[in-house]
């Protein structure tokens, strides 16, 4: 490049360059901290403005440790305990601002304190710590959650009952249900030690169904908890399950109201089931009428909906359609997607099917001798034939 060329370049470009720099942030300005929220992702970050380009460039060059970053810009949960660490996150240095992006999205409506200490800049700036208390917008109110039903739904339940299901109108929180479920006797007194107290909660994937178990040590015969305390339920007595409304839903709101479900305990169910005892009301060919199967005793609702199906004779793939459980889980009806074709069918049950006391097809829960062979892997099918005419 000749001298003329350099001169021309300087005259043409230099003013533009100065404008760019001036438009940036050549001089330090008063520090301000704001909370920026992305309306789409709802992600929030703290933004520090007022830093000069020199200060920002020196921050970009600095190899700050995590401790140095948090000494410069410390973001904490308002009113957190003494000695609590700052909120974890990432520090980004931009051309005009310093930003802090928390590792987890900030909670809507919660207050956070951001404190910027200018003396901790690579080239310390005089002045006091700038502190702001900021909160992301509060979440919109959501409709409250209710308990839709409890299963088994029968009025009389065997005294060796193993489990209950609670169905909710909307997803619940991952709080443990153990603190909110009580079994009361007919005098309204809580029965202690009735339920299985494990540090695990049994939710469905959508958090709308919760399973709780009776303590199997008291249900099973012959072991110490059963011998010492007996079963929690006794044939002929009335009981109530009470659900505390303080149980929070997925939006952190308590339930609309307490829920009570009363039932009477009946005799223990101690025998295995037989598919031959089931009654089939076969549908007519050419219709989409449901097939209705009636059982001599109630079956477990969850397993009833998963372990029973219909297939064409000699085939294993299930006929597609929708199943529903009848009153008290003593029947099952199935409406096919397509009209029934005339011919032979099998009603089939997979061998993990249980009644509410854990008895399976051909095998009681409490076996009084040790004479059967375990079957693992793919569940076996038990079938009951029927004909569609």
């Amino acid at each position, binding site marked *: 490049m000749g001298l003329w060329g350099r001169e021309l370049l300087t005259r043409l470009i230099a003013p533009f360059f100065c404008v*760019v720099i001036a438009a940036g942030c050549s001089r330090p300005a008063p520090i301000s901290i704001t909370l920026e929220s992305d309306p789409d992702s709802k992600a929030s970050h703290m933004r520090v403005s007022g830093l000069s380009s020199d200060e920002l460039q020196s921050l970009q060059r600095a190899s700050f440790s995590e401790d140095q970053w948090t000494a410069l810009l410390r973001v904490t949960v308002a009113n957190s305990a003494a000695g609590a660490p700052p909120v974890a996150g990432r520090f980004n240095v*931009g051309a005009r*601002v310093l930003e802090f992006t928390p590792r*987890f999205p900030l909670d809507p409506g*919660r207050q956070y304190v951001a404190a910027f200490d200018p003396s901790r800049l690579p080239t310390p700036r005089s002045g006091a710590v700038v502190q702001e208390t900021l909160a992301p917008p509060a979440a919109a109110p959501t409709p409250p959650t209710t308990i839709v039903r409890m299963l088994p739904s029968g009025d009389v339940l065997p005294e060796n009952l193993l489990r209950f299901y609670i169905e909710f109108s909307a997803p619940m929180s*991952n709080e443990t249900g153990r603190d909110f479920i009580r079994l009361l006797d007919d005098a309204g007194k809580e029965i202690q030690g009735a339920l299985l107290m*494990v540090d695990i909660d*049994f939710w469905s994937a959508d958090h709308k169904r919760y399973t709780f178990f009776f303590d*199997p040590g008291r249900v099973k015969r012959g072991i110490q908890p059963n011998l010492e305390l007996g079963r929690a339920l006794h044939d002929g007595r009335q009981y109530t399950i009470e659900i505390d409304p303080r149980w929070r839903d997925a939006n952190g709101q308590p339930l609309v109201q307490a829920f009570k479900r009363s039932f009477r305990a009946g005799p223990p169910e101690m025998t295995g089931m037989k598919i031959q005892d089931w009654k089939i009301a076969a549908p007519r060919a050419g219709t989409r009428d449901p097939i209705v199967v009636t059982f001599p005793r109630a079956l477990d609702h969850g397993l009833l909906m998963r372990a029973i199906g219909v297939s064409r004779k000699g085939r294993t793939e299930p006929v597609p359609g929708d199943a529903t459980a009848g009153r008290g889980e003593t029947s099952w009806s199935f409406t096919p997607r397509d009209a029934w074709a005339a011919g032979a069918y099998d009603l089939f049950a997979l061998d993990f099917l249980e009644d509410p006391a854990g008895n399976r097809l051909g095998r009681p829960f409490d076996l009084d001798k040790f004479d059967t062979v375990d079957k693992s892997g793919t569940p076996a099918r038990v079938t009951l034939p029927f004909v569609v005419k």
Partner: protein
Amino acid sequence: MRTNLVKLTALLALVVATASAPVIARGAAPVAGPSFSSIGPLAFGPDGTLFAADRQAATIFALDLSAQKAGAPGTISVPGIDAKIAALLGTDAAQVQITDLAVEPKSRNTYVSVMRGVGAAAQPALVRVDGAGKLEIVAFDALKYTSVALPNPAAASTTGRQNPRMNSVTDMALVDGKLYVTGLSNEEFASKFWAVPYPFKATDNGTSVEIFHGNHGAFETRSPVISFVPTKINNQTTLIAGYTCTPLVRFPVSDLKPGAKVMGTTIAELGNGNQPFDMVLYKKDGKEFLLVGNSARGVMKVATEPFGAAEGIKAKVTSETGGVPFEKIASLTGVTQLDLLDATHTIVLQRGEAGINLTAVILP
């Protein structure tokens, strides 16, 4: 000249673009790490691999933590750890659920699995506590990992219904090249014990056996295992396990073959209304002991010496508890999780008046 002018223009364009861009990210580009939908329980392999169960997804992740920047070795007590973890995660203690803890065998740092948030949008986090009491979040996005999905039983599928069945992993341990996993179902009274070869292979998600309990020789039931610990008894790798119905049982690993009926031998009754949630083995004064954390009956110390000879409880136990003798550790109350910290200490999570404390305790 033209070339230089182009270069300079490009430089100016970069200056303008940079000035208007909101942020320049620092640090390395993210690497896709494990995608947990939930986290806990945890178990370390001897080489420092962390097995972390995702109960929501019925998946076990094996995490390689070797690239983590070292913290101060060991773990010191952290009072109010729930509130401190909550602060680190930008929330309060009511929004934090601690699901497990495990001690890394080399550094002796403690890893705590946490769910942040109470709702469906709750997010998993893994927090390391080091020998200086510093809490640090383990970044998932840069972690190397492998994973295996637990088998879900077949269903007589019908249309239009989401399967609500889920397995909840209760405990895990790596034994002789296999990861053993116990779980409970939210539907059938399941009693499965999975064995998955490790390192995980894409084509092998293991086998499972059904575990039974011979109730003192008289009755037999399916009995899920809540917690277990591997050990050697008479030179045979043996699992000491706690059933949901409380008894402590033993069975040789060699019994865990597909198709076999696996029946634990009851060696102790730990009392009613009680679940053993964690067990660790340790040595003191030349003897081996089992430390058992219970849901309702505190922490118990059991000498393992009689385990091999114990014939199993076959008759009605006349005392409140029975079988091999054990000692209740009265000083350890409110314990919700425990692991072995080092040769002389256990690390426990304890409920206190002001929250949950992480406490290093001398082994009893």
